[in-house]
Every structure is written in C-alpha cells, then in structure tokens.
C-alpha cells in the first residue's frame, strides 16, 4: 500500500477514526488496533511477508525476555548473538543470496575455473532492511541495559510493525519509540494538524518534485549512450533531486502520519543539500540510518579514536557497510567507498564536526565561502549518486567518462531530454522554500504552522494541493526508491 494511493487514502481515515473514537479509552486496544492495522498495511503488498515479520518480532521478544532473566555474561552474549544471527540471517538470505552466489561464480570464472551460480527466485520482502535494524536496536539496547525489556507482547509487536515507518523508515530506536507504546495517547489538536501539514509537504516532495525529476533522470540513465554531456549532467542532477524528494518526502509522510496517532518519530532529513562538507551531509542525510551505524557499528569499532590506520579502517567499514545495506550490487558498495574517500580527509584533519550549526544561520544570504562549500559538497554528492543510480559499475564509469571526454554543449531538449518549464519554476520555488525553512523540522513550518493568519494557512494548503493535482505524477510505475531496500 503506497502512501500516494487511493488504498491508503481509504485505509488511513478508517484507522484514525477507530483509533480516536473507538479504542482511545484503552491503551491495550489502541496498541492492538495499531498492530492489526500495521499487519493489514504490510500484508497488502504480499500476505506472505507477514510470517517473516511476525517470526522476527517473536525471536526478539523472546531474546528480550531471556536477557531480563539472566545476568550471566556468556548467556547474555549468546542471546544477543541469536537475535543478530536470525535478523541478519534473514536479511542476508533474502537480500544478498543471489548477489554472493553470482559474485562467487564470477570470481571462480575470473581465475579460470568457471562454475554455475546458484540463483534462487527470491522475492525481497518490503521493508526488511528497515524493520530488521529496528528490532536489532531493541536487542542491542536491552543487552547494553539501556532499555528495560518489555513483557507487553502487543506493544512490542506494534513497535516492530508500526505502519507509518515500517517499510522505509525512519529506523526508530527502541529507546525512543517503544516507550511511546506504554502510555495511552491522547488526541492533541496541534500535533495532529502539524502531522497533516507535514504529510502534505511530504506528498508534494514525492509526487511533484521526485516523480517529475524521475522522468528526466530515467530518460537519461536509460539512454545515456546516446545523449551529450549536458544531458548526462542534467540526468545526474535530476536524480539527485529525485532521491531527496522521494526519500525525504516519504519520511515526512511517515513522521506526519505517526503524529496523527500521537507518536513522535525521529527526524530523518535536515536539508542535506545545504551542507558545507561531507561530514555535515552525513549528519543531515538519512539520519536514522547513519546514526544507527554510528552507534552500533562505528563507535563499538573505536570510532575516530585510536591510530590513523584504525580511523581509516573504521570510516571505510561504516561507509561500505552502509552502501551494502542499500542493495546487493557493487555499485552501492562503490558508492559507500566513494563517500568514505570524501569523508576521510575531514576525519584525519579533525574537521568532520566543524559545521554543526545551520548554514547562514540568522541570515538569508549565504556568504561566498558558504556558497562555494555548498556547491562543492553538492557536486561531490551528485557524482556519488551516479554510482547509486547506475545498474553496474561499468555503466557508472562509462557515464562519467562520457561527461568528461568529448564535452559538447547540446541543448538537452534537442536530444529528447526535456522538462516542462512550469515544473522547472516549481523546482526553483521548492529550493527557495527549502532554503527559507532550513532551520525547522520541515520546510513549510514557517509558511504554514507559524503563520498566524488562518485564511493564509488554508490558502497555502489549497495551493499545495492544487500544485500536487496539476503537476504531480500519478503513475504506479514510480514507487518510492527506498522500497527496493
């Protein structure tokens, strides 16, 4: 069930009404309704996926109970290991079996002993990369005694399967989200309306910005050998906006939807394309994932402490694993590695945490230096996104090679790479709105939430809705990019 679908438009009000009018007086009923709704939501894709999430939830629930009953270090480690093996085992099997099998076979072929790759017809369960990490955070935090294990089955299963963020995040920490299931939620007008505003903005980012950019990007990437350098650059830039609009839009819808039910999820994007360096970019892009890797992988490995070699090793491990998390393809691994190379100079010179505030804070115009910094960071991320988007490493390298060699200026429109001028204006307005709203949770907080005039706020809502209606792309073929992870 996609957020931008008629099914969800029917599903959400029904759950909302039942939640606040039928089950609101009882915590267990509230959680139970969320659990059932989440399973309906998830099973809408494929009911078979439910068995996996229920099994994963069961394992981690039992591990939590087990950890509460034993103080012996060895037993506790075994329980944690069981959780890690089951969760990462499922993830590894469904996501990476064919990749490893084919890579294995390719390696043998390379060394002159070809073998047939065993390939299984595996359907990747939607959201497995997300909820697996979410439940792992529970097991790890309970093991580290940061969180009391829960005995409330309904609360725990609801936490794992909570539908607004189940299939594409934010990846919530158990320490943040699970306690919210222990307390009855009360209807709050401001929180609910704020959630709806955020959902509206998320829909705009996804349906208007991301999906229109996808048309141009797909056109270029699918036909990259027959277009000129300018079109190739345009394709890469449009993909850069596509992935931001798609993923941050989804996150806004997820966070906004959660607010409708009285839940507060973590922020997942903080205007990453206004970053002044790569360190800042990774503090602003997919925050839930990068912070997960930081806390559960990078810091346990030693983080930025220790010898230079260890720092380099840890940086590469975390970025490559992060790349690998995104998909079973060497392009994602390379993308991660490239980001590690970008990040390394900052960490070695201890400059990875110098831009902690918002760019041009309390000013409208950035300084020349800030413009240069943002421009450089943006270009580096665009280059990296080429690897993320390309179907293979050879295509990605060929794509970049064609930009650099035989650079010639041919108008993209002449090559069939065109876009509506009205959309281009919308894109500029969008960047302007994002810039002016860059210090808030999402861009239109100032325009809508903080606007004291009700008629102006309502005008703003209708203008956004009208823009979505007139300029949005309503095609079932363009899904959320991160669903494939």
């Amino acid at each position: 069930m996609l957020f931008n679908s008629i099914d969800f438009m029917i599903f959400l009000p029904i759950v909302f009404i039942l939640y606040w009018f039928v089950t609101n007086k009882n915590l267990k009923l509230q959680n139970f309704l969320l659990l059932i709704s989440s399973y309906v939501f998830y099973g809408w894709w494929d009911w078979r996926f439910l068995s996996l999430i229920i099994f994963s939830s069961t394992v981690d629930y039992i591990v939590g109970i087990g950890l509460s009953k034993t103080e012996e270090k060895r037993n506790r480690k075994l329980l944690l290991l069981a959780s890690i093996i089951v969760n990462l085992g499922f993830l590894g099997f469904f996501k990476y079996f064919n990749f490893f099998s084919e890579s294995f076979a390719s390696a043998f072929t390379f060394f002159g002993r070809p073998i047939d790759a065993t390939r299984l017809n595996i359907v990747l369960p939607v959201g497995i990369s997300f909820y697996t990490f979410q439940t792992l955070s529970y097991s790890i935090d309970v093991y580290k005694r940061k969180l009391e294990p829960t005995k409330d089955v309904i609360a725990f299963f609801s936490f794992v399967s909570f539908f607004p963020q189940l299939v594409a995040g934010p990846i919530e920490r158990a320490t943040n989200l699970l306690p919210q299931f222990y307390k009855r939620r009360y209807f709050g007008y401001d929180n609910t309306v704020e959630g709806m505003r955020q959902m509206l903005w998320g829909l705009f980012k996804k349906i208007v910005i991301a999906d229109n950019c996808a048309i141009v990007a797909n056109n270029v990437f699918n036909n990259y050998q027959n277009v000129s350098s300018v079109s190739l650059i345009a394709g890469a830039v449009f993909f850069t906006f596509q992935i931001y609009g798609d993923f941050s839009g989804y996150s806004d819808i997820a966070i906004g939807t959660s607010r409708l039910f009285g839940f507060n999820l973590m922020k997942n994007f903080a205007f990453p394309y206004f970053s002044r360096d790569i360190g800042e970019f990774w503090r602003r892009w997919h925050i839930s994932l990068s912070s997960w890797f930081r806390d559960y992988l990078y810091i346990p490995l030693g983080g930025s402490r220790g010898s230079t070699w260890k720092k380099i090793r840890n940086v590469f491990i975390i970025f490559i694993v992060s790349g690998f998390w995104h998909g079973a393809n060497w392009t994602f691994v390379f993308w991660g590695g490239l980001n590690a190379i970008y990040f390394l100079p900052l960490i070695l010179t201890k400059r990875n945490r110098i831009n902690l505030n918002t760019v041009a804070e309390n000013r409208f115009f950035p300084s020349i230096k800030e413009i240069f910094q943002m421009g450089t960071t943006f270009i580096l991320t665009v280059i990296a996104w080429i690897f993320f988007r390309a179907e293979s490493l050879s295509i990605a390298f060929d794509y970049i090679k064609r930009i650099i060699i035989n650079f010639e200026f041919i108008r993209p429109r002449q090559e069939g790479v065109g876009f509506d001028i009205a959309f281009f204006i919308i894109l500029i307005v969008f960047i302007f709105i994002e810039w002016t709203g860059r210090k808030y949770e999402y861009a239109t907080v100032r325009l809508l939430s903080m606007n004291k005039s009700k008629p102006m706020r309502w005008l703003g809502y209708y203008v956004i809705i009208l823009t979505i209606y007139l300029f949005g792309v309503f095609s079932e073929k363009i899904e959320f990019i991160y669903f494939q992870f």
Partner: protein
Amino acid sequence: MKKYTFNMLGFILGLFILNLIFIIILKDSIYTREYEAVKLGYKTYLLSDSHGLPLEDSLENVGIFNFAAGSDSYYDIYRKVSFLIKNTDVERIIISVEDHTLSEQRANSNNLDRSLYYADQEDFNSIYEFITKKYIINNLPLLSSKRRYFIKHCLQFKFSPPQKGYILKDWSKLPLHKKKEMCTNRYNVQFQNRKKSNSLVSSLKDIINICKVNNIEIIGIKFPLSRDYIATIGNKNFGADSLFYENNIKVLDLKDLYLRNDNYFSDEDHLNIIGGKIFSEFLVNLLK
C-alpha cells in the same frame, strides 16, 4: 477533537467546492463534449487515436463517420465498438493498427475516463464496479489524474480550449534540427524502453472477436507518417498489424504514402488539415 472535526469538515467542503469548479470547467469543454459526440446513423465507422482526427468529417458524405479521438486505446475502442453494435446498424469498422498502438505507453495514456460514456454494466465485472467507476469516480475530477491534464491546459489557456494542433502547422517549414528533436522525443515517448502491452493485445483480440460474432467487416489502417519519423522509428513495431494479418484481416498500410509531402503533416506523425483532406479523398477511392 470538536475543533479538529469542524475544521476538517470545512476543509473537505472546500475540496468539494474545488471539485465542483473542475466539473464545471470540464462539462462544456471539448474534453468531454467532443468525445461524446457521435452520429448513430452510419454503417461504417473509423476508430483510431489522434492520427484519425485530421480527417475531420470529410468522410461523412461517403457514409463513414470519423469516431477517432486523441489517445484512444484499444480499451476505449472496444467500448465504442460494443456501443455501436448495440445502438447502430454498423456493418464495417476501420481501425488503426499503427506501429505504436500496442505500446505500454498507449496502455497508460488512454481515454478510459472518457470512454466510460460508452460503457454499460456489461463492460464491468460487477454492478459495484460499474456504479463506482461510471458515476462516482467519474464525477470526482480531483481524484482523476487524467482529467487534471485537461484542467491544467484549460487554466493555461485561460479557460479557452486549446486549438486543434493539426489545423495550422506545417511540418515542412521546420528546420532540420527541430524535426530531429521532435522525432526523437516522439520516439522516446512511444518506443524507447517500452514493451508491448499484453492487455492491449487482449483488447484488440476482443475487438476482432466481437466484430466476427456480429458479422461486422473489420479493416485495419496505418496512417501516413512523415519521412523523418519513419527513418527514426526504423522497423520498430509492436505488431498490431500482425494480429490482423494472422486473422486474415485486411490492412491498409499507408505509412509510406506521403514520403515526399512534408507539407501534408503538422508534426512528425500527424497529418494537418490539408493532408487530412487529401488523404480522405485517397481513402474513399481505396475503399470503393
């Protein structure tokens, strides 16, 4: 909660008012008005997408009604054929079987919202589906991604309908680079990275079958294309004509008819009004 409910109801009311405004915009516009205009007294009907539009009503004096509409797919043509069988004494149908008409682009870009006008309960799987699609969703343009394109154009042209593209344009007057750009764009839309639509194949087969069962003669037609566009598409063809050949149905392949007459075209693959008139005369002679 009361404040929220009250404000939500007010907001939804605003959306209904917006919906009503869109219904009014669409009601007397060419989007539905021209689509729903059909003359029932003919024995031969021409059914195609926008390629048939330049012929306008020039065939009516020889007993052929031009029932073409821009973006008509075989889904829509089936509904129209079914309608004609029930409401007219149709004896012959001429259907376009262009190279692109089985493309998934055509499957996605269709007139299913407009051809509902010609559909009745038998065309749906259940009465629930019939009522929902024909009477409820059809009157909610705010939920229709198709109708919004037309509303967008109406607003762009300040409530006046856009001009029919084929009236004034002359393909021969365009510079070469512009022609190449337009051909490439059109090719990308219709063919590049597109697959054949199995559901359109199924619809076309249904059209053939329903005509056979009702003893209606069926003829396929491929409208003329410009020389530049023929060069661009090469031998790309999703095979609508092959389906006709397999069923021993005659196909008038007139794609190459005007290779030396760029002035008959408004763009790479549509005749203009001059070309439409001349082609009509040719077609009438051919069908005699």
